[in-house]
């Protein structure tokens, strides 16, 4: 393949720093699980997980530097189908009369 190599713009150290950041995120998730935040425990865990996922998509998957619109379309379609999974599942969970 003779495609443009967008990911050469970042140094190895940059990716190591991102990786360390992700590990810190994991440690924070584990730490937060031991603090009783009531209903906010899952909210905090999901917030950290979402931030980590965004970092992975933007940097490790090189979406931030991708010049092609197609890359954006691929990422958006992934999130679109995830949204379908969550929203239609919630159509069940939120309307169960026996909850």
């Amino acid at each position, binding site marked *: 393949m003779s495609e443009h190599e967008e990911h050469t713009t970042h140094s190895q150290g940059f990716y190591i720093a991102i990786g360390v950041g992700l590990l810190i995120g994991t440690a924070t998730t584990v730490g937060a699980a031991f603090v009783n935040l009531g209903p906010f425990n899952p909210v905090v865990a999901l917030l950290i997980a979402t931030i980590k996922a965004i970092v992975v998509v933007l940097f490790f998957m090189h979406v931030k530097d991708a010049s092609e619109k197609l890359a954006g379309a691929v990422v958006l379609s992934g999130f679109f189908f995830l949204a379908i999974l969550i929203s239609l599942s919630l*159509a069940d969970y939120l309307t169960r009369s026996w909850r």
Partner: protein
Amino acid sequence: MASAVIPANQAPKLNYLNNGHSLRSWLLTTDHKRIAVLYLISVTTFFFLGGFFAMLIRLELLTPQGDLMQADTYNKVFTMHGMIMVFFFLIPVVPAVLGNFLIPIMIGAKDLAFPRINLLSWYLYIIGGILITHVMLTGGVDTGWTFYAPFSTEYTNTKIVEAGLAVFIAGFSSIFTGLNFIVTIHRMRAPGLTWDRLPLFIWSNYATSLVMVLGTPVVAITIVLVAVERLFHLGIFDPRLGGDPVLFQHLFWFYSHPAVYIMILPSMGVVSELIACFARKRIFGYKFVALSSVAIAVFGFLVWAHHMFVAGISLYAAMIFSFLSFSVGVPSAVKVFNWTATLYKGSITYATPMLYAFGFIGLFTMGGLTGLMLATIGIDVHVTDTYFVVAHFHYVMVGGVLMGYLGGMHFWWPKISGRMYPEGWAKLSALFVFVGFNLTFFPQFILGYVGMPRRYWQYPPEFQVLNVLSTAGASILAVGYLLPMIYFLWSLRYGPIASDNPWHAAGLEWKTTSPPPTFNFEETPVVTWEAYNYDEIPDKELEAPVAR
């Protein structure tokens, strides 16, 4: 054979089959055509393995008593039948064999975008296949192919984790194939081959690939969650640990219903090619048929909970999913109506591939219409987990997918092997398949409707007549499936040598040699014509495929 004499100016050229004969040249190949042949051998093996389990099921159900095997053994037999047929045959069969072989050639490319990933996907499939075979030989699994929790996570002591790993690995094979197809179709089309000139087989495989890439990771994660709950007792699906067993079904069917479209869409693409060629007409409403593939892929993601109407989902959700399930009937009907409209005033030839295409249309229509019955909540509640459902999905998966696959195999066999198959035997086997299929599965509609549940190894004596018919049909069907394997193998050595375009068909794959050279074309073709330009192609001699 006298007709197999090759004229001097047509001496055997270097092609993908004779370009290296060592085992290494096959096992380390990156040629998409050779990988397709590797897949052909592998999926055929698994098809006959899955078929063996099907025959055991039918033999057990020949009599009302559970006399051939124990109940637990029967559970394992239908589970292995389902797992092998779904994950190791139906999902890969058309994309990995016909898609792999044809997509680059049909778009005028030298290979897929990532040839080594293509080989990797075959190896992953094989690793998954070895694992599932190991599971089969060392005790099997008894959950059904659906791995329903909490039975799979808590109660059964069969090899869930290993079987899940096999499916997980085969799933990545599927993802890689889909990814390869998407990139190839976007980036490697020949000059002039715009999206609205693409063969419909390409459109349907493109739509399939979207489902493979977007859906398969979900089932992979779901299987990991089953393993995590089973091994580490983390509460995900078990209510006692704070989980929800219905969540498993949501996650599982989010992939596994679209998986039906992974199976059927490529076969629909095959049928479009066959109908156009053997009716000598451009497909009626080409753009609608093309876009209906994408619509099926998208709508297919919105209907999963119709598998769960009696599983405890809310009535509100059931109504939404019932309505959405009807919507997927629209693009499916667009295809069926447009195929039949294409036949109108067509110059129809009843060659074997066309017989399979006709079989597909009839059987898929019955499978699809009974699907609409099952999307209706009231009927579904009545027939859930009965043989009505079994008959419905076999009409779609076997009557649809396998008919399309066999039609495609006969159509492109001259291109794949460079040889013609015996037409008389092929027509006979098509007849066996059609008659055997209907005799096997139509009685199951009645059995289910009058209340015979699926997945039981005993049944009340009043159901025996229909079960005997079904088992008799299965034996005819088995002959119908064995015959093509025998005469395809026979034709490799004794079949008349095929011309480059024995069907006088449109499409770039018929403009290269049979079998094609390693890089498909001597020169990159430039496309200046619309798809299915049959009005510009003479169809002389079509009745008797050219042998030289």
